[in-house]
């Protein structure tokens, strides 16, 4: 790929857009799926949100102002779609703040594509107990490998605030994982 601008031009060009969009799917489908999956939890819901994300990307491309990179823009759309989805679910269930952690674990354990050993389940429990925003920040940095600068654009937050939140969450997770296997020890 020559440059991002060339790629975007191909996405907007009537003649090349189909091929370019397939390329975009190859590059981002799996990345965005895992990003969405950690927010909406179940595979089935993630599949719906992923499809909506790419549909929205397709419809919004002509209006993409390139104020951020394509990478950041794609993640922002996926994040917004995921948040819209979980907010709608909360409204349907008339859910209070206290129920969120329980709902997270219930959704997880009801998903046939979740199978965890003791360590994995412990980590999921710790993540479920975190405030939603802190959990998302941790997941975006640790699992999705996003830069703080990119996260600042996606979440509309200051980089400094994100760093503080991330390192505080990492510390919290480490402390809670000490009594289980320290599989995060060398990675976080």
């Amino acid at each position: 790929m020559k440059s991002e601008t060339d790629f975007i031009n191909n996405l907007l060009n009537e003649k090349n857009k189909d091929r370019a969009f397939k390329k975009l799917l190859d590059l981002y489908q799996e990345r965005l799926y895992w990003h969405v999956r950690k927010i909406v939890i179940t595979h089935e819901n993630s599949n719906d949100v992923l499809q909506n994300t790419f549909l929205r990307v397709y419809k919004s491309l002509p209006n993409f102002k390139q104020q951020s990179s394509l990478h950041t823009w794609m993640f922002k759309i996926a994040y917004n779609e995921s948040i819209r989805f979980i907010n709608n679910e909360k409204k349907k269930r008339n859910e209070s703040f206290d129920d969120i952690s329980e709902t997270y674990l219930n959704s997880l354990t009801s998903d046939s594509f979740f199978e965890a050993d003791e360590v994995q389940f412990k980590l999921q429990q710790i993540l479920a107990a975190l405030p939603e925003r802190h959990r998302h920040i941790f997941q975006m940095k640790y699992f999705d490998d996003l830069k703080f600068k990119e996260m600042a654009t996606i979440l509309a937050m200051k980089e400094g605030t994100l760093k503080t939140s991330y390192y505080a969450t990492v510390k919290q997770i480490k402390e809670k994982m000490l009594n289980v296997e320290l599989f995060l020890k060398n990675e976080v």
Partner: protein
Amino acid sequence: MNFKENRDLAKTHKKDLGLSVPENYFSTSKNEILTKISGEKKVKVVPLYQNKFVWFVAAGITLLVALTVFKPNLFSNIDNNPSIVSDSLFNNENLDLVYDLFLADKEDITVASLFMDDTEISNYIANNIIEEILIDDEIDYFMLEDMLNDEMDIN
């Protein structure tokens, strides 16, 4: 485009979080997304300004306003009409006929509406014409919300 190393995302999520996907999920999903997008291409929204009916209604409303403003005595001078016309216009039976014509035939809206009460016209426009315009252009509440959401995403 700055891409990070190609980590095996599926393996990481399985190992650390116990999450997995169905076999061949990503190739199936790719086809589903492409099918949805090709369906999206076929949906063509006709802008309001290209709709002939909208222009027709707009012209009718303009004519009504123009007649009310520039010919305020048009209706009050109706007694000056030949008696046969005047009689027929004030005959209840004929008024009902005009009303029926107005409701039955929207093509005659500008003529028939001259003999209608303003409230009746407003009600008719509110209950029928606006709804028809919305249906014609497939801009229902959900699509409007979708458009607003698009704007939010873009910004």
